[in-house]
């Protein structure tokens, strides 16, 4: 969805620059626009080579996405210092590359919360240990207990919402709240394509967390109790923006209150509600 909307924006920009007219610039709706009284361009003009241009743009975009992970990793040195203890949860490929890149020049320790019932943290720990990074695996219950000794928390995310909140792996909110309690900075790694113009209202939080099969949690229990136990096994959960200190994307680092700006650059206002219209 996000990529689709982003491409729509790029196409609109291409059209406007190609047709070189003064028709309402590709500006987001604003008070200024109301006053200037220019109508939105209806994109009706014939632009001859629009198709080739759009193809070029999509190719550039693909390239950008492919190197996104590397771009994020390159910023690792600025954020990880020697002898620091970093905490993370679950297995994020972005976080893995980030830490491995930093390990080339710095010595630090990593604590990985295993994130039951998927235990994806184990995989990350194995990979990090393979790169000779000193790693410790902890259970999810120990997150709060260990937080006092942690210098930074670095996590990945599935989506970054329009208000700066996250839709991240289940367990992230616990980590975030523990970090807030001990004033430990929480850094979220997310390429620009993870930004979504959606908000998640409180009522929809459970629905957006992608409930998955209760089997890994209950295992045999369901059979033994003949279905009297129900179980909720969310894959993702919502983390509010006040718990996040910094976002690192392939373009730059920015604070949660700046997310609206990134949003304005990536998506056109009219495209934000594609599903509803």
């Amino acid at each position, binding site marked *: 969805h996000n990529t689709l909307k982003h491409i729509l924006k790029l196409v609109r920009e291409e059209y406007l620059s190609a047709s070189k007219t003064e028709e309402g610039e590709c500006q987001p709706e*604003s*008070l200024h626009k109301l*006053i200037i*009284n220019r109508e939105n361009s209806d994109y009706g003009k014939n632009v001859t080579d629009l198709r080739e241009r759009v193809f070029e743009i999509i190719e550039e975009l693909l390239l950008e996405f492919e190197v996104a992970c590397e771009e994020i990793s390159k910023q690792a040195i600025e954020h990880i210092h020697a002898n620091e203890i970093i905490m993370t949860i679950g297995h994020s490929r972005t976080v893995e590359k980030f830490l491995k890149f930093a390990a080339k020049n710095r010595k630090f320790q990593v604590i990985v919360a295993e994130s039951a019932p998927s235990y994806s943290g184990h995989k990350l720990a194995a990979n990090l240990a393979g790169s000779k990074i000193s790693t410790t695996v902890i259970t999810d219950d120990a997150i709060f207990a260990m937080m006092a000794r942690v210098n930074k928390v670095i996590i990945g995310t599935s989506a970054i919402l329009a*208000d700066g909140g996250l839709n991240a792996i289940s367990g992230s909110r616990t980590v975030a709240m523990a970090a807030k309690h001990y004033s430990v900075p929480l850094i979220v790694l997310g390429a620009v394509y993870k930004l979504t113009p959606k*908000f998640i209202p409180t*009522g*929809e939080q459970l629905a957006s967390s992608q409930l998955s099969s209760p089997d890994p949690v209950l295992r045999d229990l369901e059979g033994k109790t003949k279905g009297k136990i129900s179980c909720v096994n969310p894959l993702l959960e919502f983390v509010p923006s006040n718990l996040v200190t910094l976002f690192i994307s392939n373009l730059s680092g920015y604070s949660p209150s700046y*997310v*609206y700006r990134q949003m304005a650059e990536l998506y056109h206002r009219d495209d934000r509600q594609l599903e509803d219209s």
Partner: protein
Amino acid sequence: MPADTSPLEVFKSSLDREVTTGIAAIQGLMQVLRQSKAKTLQELVELLNTETEKFKNVDCSVIAVTSASELFLRFITLAHTQLETQDFSNCLQLMLERGTNFLSKLEKARDKIATNFQPYVQEGGKILVHGSSKAVLSALVKVARLGREFHVYLTRGGIKLKKHMDAENIACTVIDDMAVGYVMKKVDCVLLGAEGVCESGGIVNQLGTLTVSIVAKQFNKPVYSLVESFKFVRFYPLDQDDLPTEFQRVGESSDDVLCPRVDYTPPAHITLLFTDLGILTPSAVSDELINLYL
């Protein structure tokens, strides 16, 4: 309206018809345009400023008049720069046309806000409403007409809305202003309007808003403000004392009770602002204002 009614009367009659203060002010100023025999932009601006001062003396939300008139003034000056080559009376005609267009766009603002806000009211939700904002009313009415059941806790400050809510069959409980802390735990979110939005992202609203939002923060309840974009004002208060006295218009009370009309709620206490420009975080407000004035 007849061409010879004074702008002040146009303004007052719009207010009587329950049109929101900002739009009423712009309607009044449009009447100035119609009646003016000004030959230069300076003269016109002078005229508009004098009329705005008269409007501010009426018992209404002064901050809304300020923001609307500043916006209108900006509209005039921008329109004039674009039509520079024409002589002034032609200019005036064109401004009138554009002005009518401008006004009709603003009037649609409330509906857009209601649409934006819709997904935030869930079935069986409980909402605390403070202040008698028409934007809030129209949003809640819209959701109610969709058939969603929800319950509203209305503070005494918002009592004017009660009869409208009853007309739409919205379940409504009026609570005493001091009972806000008592009910806050049961409530899902707090809904406010705003008389004005400051550059900091904070809002100026009916007295009691600051208290309600502080209590909401304590209970981790989101505070939403529904406000039209023409209420954005270029003003950066740090504290209650920074509000100009003309906004306060302290009521004539017979005893020595301090009863200001409005208070300022800092942006840290507001979760989201629902405007016709979209859903904004408080930090996005100053960006919108810069876009306007630059």
